[in-house]
C-alpha cells in the first residue's frame, strides 16, 4: 500500500513539475518579441554562443563518425561485393538517425549545460532578481532568446553534421579504401529521398532541439542558487536531455519508419 501511495505522490510531483515547466516555456516564448531591434540583437548574440561556438565539435565529431561508418560498412559490404553501396549506407544512417541523435547529445553536453550554468549563475548573483526589480521580465529578456536560438541552431547543426559525416566517409571510402567515386555518389543520390529521409531527420532534430533547450533553460531558472545547486542542475540537464533524446528518438522513428 505504501509503495502505491509513494508512487502516486511521485507521479503527482512529476506531473506538477512538467506543468510548471510547460507554463514557463509558454510564458517565455509568448512574451519575447517586444521590440524588434532589441529582440534581433538578443537572438543574434545567443545564436552565436549556442550555435556558432558549437560548430567545431559538430564538424569534428561528424567527420569522425562518417569515417568510422565507412570503415565498418565497407568491411561488411565488401564481403558481398557491393562496396559502392557504402555511400547509401553512410547517407541514410546519418540523415535518418545518427545526425539528429548525436548532434542533440553533443548539443546537450556543450550548449545545454552551458545554458543551465549561465542562467543558474545569473540567479545566484541576483541578476535575474535585478531584471525583475527593474520591471523587466527575465523570461522575456534571458530565457526566450536562449530557447529560440537553441531551436533554430540544433536542426542546422544536425544538417552540418550530416554534411561533415558524408565528406569524412567519402575521404575514407573513396580516398583510402578505393571505392569508385561515381558509384559512391550515385548510390547515395538514388537512395536518399528529400521528404522521407532528409525532412524526417530535420523533424527529429527540431523535436530534440525543443526538448533539450527547454530542459536546459528550465533547470537553470529553477536551480537552487548555490554552487552545489548549479552543479546538480547542470548534471540534470545533461542526464535528462540524453534520456529524453534517446526515448523520443525511438518514438519518432517508430512513427516515421515503423510502417512495415
Amino acid at each position: 500500500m505504501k509503495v502505491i501511495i509513494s508512487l502516486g505522490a511521485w507521479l503527482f510531483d512529476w506531473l506538477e513539475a512538467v506543468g510548471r515547466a510547460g507554463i514557463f516555456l509558454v510564458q517565455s516564448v509568448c512574451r519575447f518579441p517586444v521590440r524588434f531591434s532589441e529582440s534581433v540583437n538578443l537572438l543574434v548574440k545567443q545564436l552565436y554562443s549556442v550555435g556558432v561556438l558549437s560548430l567545431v565539435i559538430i564538424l569534428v565529431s561528424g567527420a569522425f563518425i562518417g569515417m568510422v561508418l565507412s570503415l565498418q560498412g565497407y568491411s561488411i559490404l565488401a564481403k558481398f561485393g557491393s562496396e559502392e553501396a557504402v555511400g547509401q549506407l553512410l547517407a541514410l544512417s546519418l540523415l535518418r538517425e545518427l545526425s539528429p541523435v548525436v548532434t542533440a547529445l553533443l548539443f546537450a553536453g556543450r550548449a545545454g549545460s552551458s545554458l543551465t550554468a549561465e542562467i543558474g549563475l545569473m540567479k545566484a548573483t541576483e541578476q535575474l532578481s535585478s531584471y525583475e526589480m527593474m520591471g523587466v521580465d527575465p523570461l522575456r529578456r534571458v530565457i526566450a532568446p536562449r530557447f529560440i536560438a537553441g531551436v533554430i541552431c540544433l536542426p542546422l547543426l544536425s544538417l552540418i553534421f550530416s554534411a561533415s559525416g558524408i565528406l569524412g566517409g567519402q575521404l575514407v571510402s573513396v580516398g583510402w579504401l578505393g571505392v569508385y567515386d561515381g558509384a559512391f555518389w550515385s548510390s547515395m543520390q538514388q537512395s536518399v529521398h528529400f521528404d522521407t529521409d532528409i525532412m524526417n531527420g530535420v523533424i527529429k532534430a527540431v523535436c530534440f532541439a525543443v526538448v533539450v533547450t527547454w530542459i536546459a533553460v528550465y533547470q537553470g531558472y529553477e536551480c537552487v542558487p548555490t554552487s552545489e545547486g548549479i552543479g546538480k542542475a547542470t548534471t540534470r540537464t545533461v542526464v535528462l536531455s540524453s534520456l529524453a533524446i534517446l526515448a523520443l528518438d525511438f518514438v519518432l522513428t517508430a512513427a516515421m519508419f515503423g510502417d512495415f
Partner: protein
Amino acid sequence: MIKGVSVVDAYIRVNDLSFFRGDRVIYENVSLTIPKGKITAVMGPSGTGKTTLLRLIAAQLTPTAGTIFVNGQNVHALSRTELYKVRKKMGMLFQSGALFTDMSVAENVAFPMEEHTKLSAKEIASIVSDKLHSVGLRGAAKMMPAELSGGMARRVALARAIALDPELVMYDEPFTGQDPISKGVLVKLIRQLNDSANITSVLVSHDVKESLSIADHVCILAGGRVIAEGSAKDILASEDPEVRQFLNGEPDGPVPFHYPESVDDSDVDLQGGPQSVASKSNKGGAIQ
C-alpha cells in the same frame, strides 16, 4: 519596546505581516511604517529576514498573511503589468551589486533607461555620465563588472538603481564586506541621494554605527517581530535588553547564543555511529 513614531506621510505601510518558510516562522504579525522622504534603517541580527522584508516590499515574495502598501497600493494585489509599473519607481541595491556581467559599467547604468524610456542614445549617454559622476565613477564607464572592486561594483549598482530617478531606493546590506573608506563613501552617497532627490530610502543592515549615523528612522527586527522602532536617538537611549544586546554586540542575552535544538537533531552525530556519553552530557552547555 519603544513606540513607533507617528508617521503621517508613510510611503510604505506593512500591516500584520506574516511570512513562513516551510515550518519556519520568519515574520508573525509584524506591522511597521516607512516614512516618505526619509532614510529608514531596518536592522537586526543575521537570519532575521531583513532581505526577505525587502523582497516582500518589492513583491518578489508573497506573504503568508497581511498586506504591504507602497505609496498607497497593495503590491501583492497588483497584476504583473501593474507591478512592473510600480517597480519602475523602485530602485534596489542588491548585496552583491547584481551587475549584468555581459555589459560594461555604462551599459549597466543605461539599461533601465533603454528599457523604459524613449530617450535618444545621446540623452541616455549624458544621463549615464551624470549618474556615474554622482557615485564618483565616471572614469570607469568602459570597464566590465569583473574588473571592478566590490566597493566600486556596489557604487555602479547604486548609479543603476537611481537611473530612472525612483521614488524608493532599497539598500540590501550596503556596507557588508566593505573597507572603512568604501563604507564612508556609501554612507555619504546614500545621505546625499536621499536629500537631493527627495527619495525614500530603506536600508537593511546589521552595521550599527553606519546605519545609525544616517538613519532618520530605525526599526529593529529580531525573532520574527519588531523589537524597537523610532529615531536613532530613541534607539540609542533604549533600555530594552534585546536592543542593548544588539547594539552592544553581546554574544548572549535575550537573543540566545545557541540556535534552538529540536528533539530529533539534538544528538549531533557526525560519524553516523552511536553518541558517546561524554558528548551527550555536554549538550546545550557552554563552549568548553
